């Protein structure tokens, strides 16, 4: 989906982090800068031999167009439920020790972290696979939307899975499924 967005659009963003934490799962949507080291610390465990950390950062171009800023909006109660469900499923499937998923909301300056996923497992193979699968599930399902603003002020809502559910491509510029970040 690709929709022209006025430069003044200003979605509701929670002023404080929204978190859900159990002994082995940490989920967070936050307006603050992400902390990869906090996520890594959370998943540290004496029974884990492998920790995998993924950091998604915002890129400064989309199809060679200069992106001046990005912001993320969400439906927090639904996104938290979805993220927790993804984490629970992956924890179980890959027999992880722990998993942390943290996503940025609001303005995300170029080159800063927009998503952090940390997982720990007894062995490296499970950790690698779980980390990748968690990211793909988050990108495919979490109710979070990215608004890219280009130099000049115009904005476009991105869709991670353009082409599914009959998404319309307006002008060939959007809808390629390419994104300006991870």
């Amino acid at each position, binding site marked *: 989906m690709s929709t022209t967005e006025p430069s003044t659009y200003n*979605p509701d963003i929670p002023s404080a982090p929204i978190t859900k934490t159990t002994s082995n799962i940490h989920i967070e949507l936050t307006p603050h800068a992400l902390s990869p080291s906090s996520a890594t610390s959370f998943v540290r465990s004496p029974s884990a031999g492998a920790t995998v950390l993924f950091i998604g950062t915002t890129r400064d171009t989309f199809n060679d167009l200069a992106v001046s800023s990005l912001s*993320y909006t969400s*439906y927090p109660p639904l996104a938290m439920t979805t993220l927790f469900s993804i984490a629970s499923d992956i924890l179980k499937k890959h027999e992880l020790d722990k998993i942390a998923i943290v996503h940025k909301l609001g303005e995300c300056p170029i080159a800063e972290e927009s998503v952090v996923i940390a997982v720990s497992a007894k062995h490296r193979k499970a950790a690698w696979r779980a980390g990748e699968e968690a990211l793909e599930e988050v990108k495919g399902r979490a109710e979070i*939307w990215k608004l890219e603003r280009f130099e000049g002020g115009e904005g476009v809502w991105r*869709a991670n899975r353009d082409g599914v559910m009959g998404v319309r491509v307006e002008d060939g510029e959007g809808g390629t499924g390419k994104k300006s970040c991870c």
Partner: protein
Amino acid sequence: MGVSKAPEGHFSILYFAAASTFTAKSSEHLLAPLAAGQLFALLEQRYPGITDKVLTSCAVTVNLEYIDLEGDGDGDDAEHRDLVIKAGDEVAIIPPVSSG
């Protein structure tokens, strides 16, 4: 989300991303009850063009549960077309997501 409670006889509807752009609002209150199967027609009436431009690619939730308005393509009727949206319900229009 800062959504005010729906007045008596109304439900809340939340618009995200492109749906919010098209309607120029993040939420509003609409008259209840409403058959879920009539929701897109009502929105089209209020926001001409929204179906083609936005809604065809959107999912819908009622009280944080996804509802099926289109069926699964094998000839069966959509599961929730007969579901009735009641006063006080929270409905949301969910465009394709783009986290990461």
